[in-house]
């Protein structure tokens, strides 16, 4: 058995390292970009998980290969899942419409009319921001006043999401009846 408290704590400790490195990287070098700072934070945490496992293994009688691999894999999967959660937390702040609406309400003193809310945040802004990203990364291209699919990476993700929606909800979109 490789079980001890260090492997249990490793994913949580390394999540903290991930968050710290990501925030520091973006804060110090904003031109580095949010996505790259997230990758850097995740990689730092991952290195931490491996290092903590090696420290743990050096402090206990060496178990069998199966237990070593099992314990390490369990910590790595737990850390990857927590890292994925933080990645989405950062992205929620960056792209989630509900969070932006909450921010607008908060900035408006906690109360806004429907019209005021739509003046502060609307489809034109949502589409504009995403168009910039999709065109910038070549996911879509603009030719003769028409949009076309460019690099199909986001399209593949969209298709996978549709499949998951069909599997779980029996429909392809939240707008389906």
């Amino acid at each position, binding site marked *: 058995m490789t079980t001890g408290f260090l492997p249990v704590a490793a994913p949580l400790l390394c999540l903290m390292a991930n968050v710290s490195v990501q925030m520091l990287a973006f*804060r110090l070098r904003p031109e580095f970009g949010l996505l790259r700072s997230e990758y850097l934070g995740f990689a730092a945490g991952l290195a931490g998980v491996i290092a903590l496992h090696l420290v743990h293994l050096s402090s206990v009688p060496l178990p069998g290969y199966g237990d070593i691999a099992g314990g390490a894999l369990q910590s790595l999967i737990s850390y990857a*899942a927590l890292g994925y959660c933080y990645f989405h937390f950062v992205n929620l702040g960056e792209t989630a419409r509900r969070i932006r609406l*909450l921010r607008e*309400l908060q900035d408006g003193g906690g109360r806004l009319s429907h019209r005021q809310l739509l003046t502060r945040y609307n489809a034109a802004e949502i589409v504009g921001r995403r168009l910039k990203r999709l065109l910038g990364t070549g996911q879509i291209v603009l030719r003769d006043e028409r949009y076309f699919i460019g690099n199909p990476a986001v399209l593949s993700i969209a298709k996978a999401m549709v499949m998951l929606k069909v599997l779980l909800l029996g429909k392809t979109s939240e707008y389906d009846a």
Partner: protein
Amino acid sequence: MGELLLASGTVILAFAVHVLVWKIRLPRKQTRAIILIFFGVLAAVVITLPRIAGMLPVLGLREPVPLPVYLNIICFVVSIALAYMITYSAVEVDSPSLIMVLAIYRAGDAGLAVRHFNEILNDALLVEPRIRDLEFDRMATRNGEVYQLTAKGRLMARIFILHRRLLGAGKGG
């Protein structure tokens, strides 16, 4: 390896229960239902862990089961449950980028005219449903035409405002 197998089995069992419940009847509050299912299955496994260890010696779990084994299994299942819960929010709600890309894809080889694209992606499609979500999730209340943040909504807004401020990033959205 036994711990990993047991923890993975717990996740698979919770996912199976989730799919089964969804096939029978879609819960009104889906995210809450996912949390209840995953944490319920985890609680059942944790409570019966000494018995599982005795019944399945192939797992190689020592008896009495040491505390770190419990914590390891809890940490693993909770991490995956949270990750799945976050992913599920993208299943529940259509992301604007995906709506845009799918609309262009469905237009086929001729592409999608900019004018038509702008007509489809309007407030009714992209903003109104999310405003209704705030009410549904009790983050805001509506009084006539006026929306007011609830304590829950204010807390959520503050968490993200603080994080964005620490990052030195703008409003986002």
